[in-house]
């Protein structure tokens, strides 16, 4: 049995939101399958508690067509991008597109892992067998240090 750490840990009260994210306007991205996950809700709560104004992808867009049309406009108004990976840490081409657009806009990007936020360059994307639009890569976070 595979244990999915990303979705079993994390509490908005104990989340360690980096100072660079606090009180910022943040776009919260995730694969479609993660929109209704508890991880997405917890990350949103943690950001709100840290004083962030959160634009949640699940509430902002009506459809994929709407997302394609307005993503650039939305990203031009935010100060940071936070990505919540889907089950098993999997992300699709859509999330990769959001990350690339954020890089073009010069927006810092973080990936949420339970109650931690990792900068984009601190994680690794392992491309899956038979990568597709919905399942492109698995996000691998650095191992946590034991106390």
């Amino acid at each position, binding site marked *: 049995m*595979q244990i999915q750490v990303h979705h079993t840990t994390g509490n908005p009260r104990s989340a360690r939101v980096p100072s660079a994210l606090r009180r910022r306007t943040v776009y919260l991205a995730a694969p479609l399958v993660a929109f209704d996950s508890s991880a997405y809700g917890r990350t949103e709560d943690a950001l709100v508690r840290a004083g962030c104004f959160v634009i949640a992808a699940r509430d902002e867009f009506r459809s994929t067509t709407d997302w394609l049309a307005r993503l650039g406009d939305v990203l031009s108004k935010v100060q940071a991008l936070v990505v919540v990976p889907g089950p098993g840490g999997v992300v699709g081409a859509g999330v990769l597109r959001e*990350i690339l657009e954020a*890089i073009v806009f010069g927006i810092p990007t973080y990936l949420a892992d339970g109650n931690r936020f990792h900068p984009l*360059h601190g994680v690794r*994307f392992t*491309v899956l067998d038979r*990568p597709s639009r919905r399942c492109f*890569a698995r996000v691998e976070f650095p191992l946590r240090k034991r106390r």
Partner: protein
Amino acid sequence: MTASRLRVYIGGPVAQYDAHVYKRIVEALRLRGLEVVADRERFRDMNAWRAGWRKALSECTHLLLLLGPDRVLGCGALAEIVEALTQGKQVMLAQPNGAIRPLERTWIRFLPGRSKRRTAQVNFEPRRRRGEGHGDGS
């Protein structure tokens, strides 16, 4: 790789690539009977590339990214990967020595600094020896 229409694309900073290596790989693919749409031949400048790369990709079955020695990709190359996945194309990587391998099981690590030309680095998973486990805990 099946004999099909193949588009060759160079990812990463252009200055990194040797034109002779590029030409040699394109010619080798054509000798194998593949139809190659090479972006250096098709697009004269960045404006032409911006206007035409999506259509060129849509006409092909594979995207081949030619990696430089440091295996760094820019935003343009990563955007082509995203578009290829969206269009259901297969993505292959060509190394400077001419070896071609699929994108599967590679690691992509974004580089600090958020440069559009040096955005991410591709790393290959070491080949497993026979009898070795998958190492994924399963």
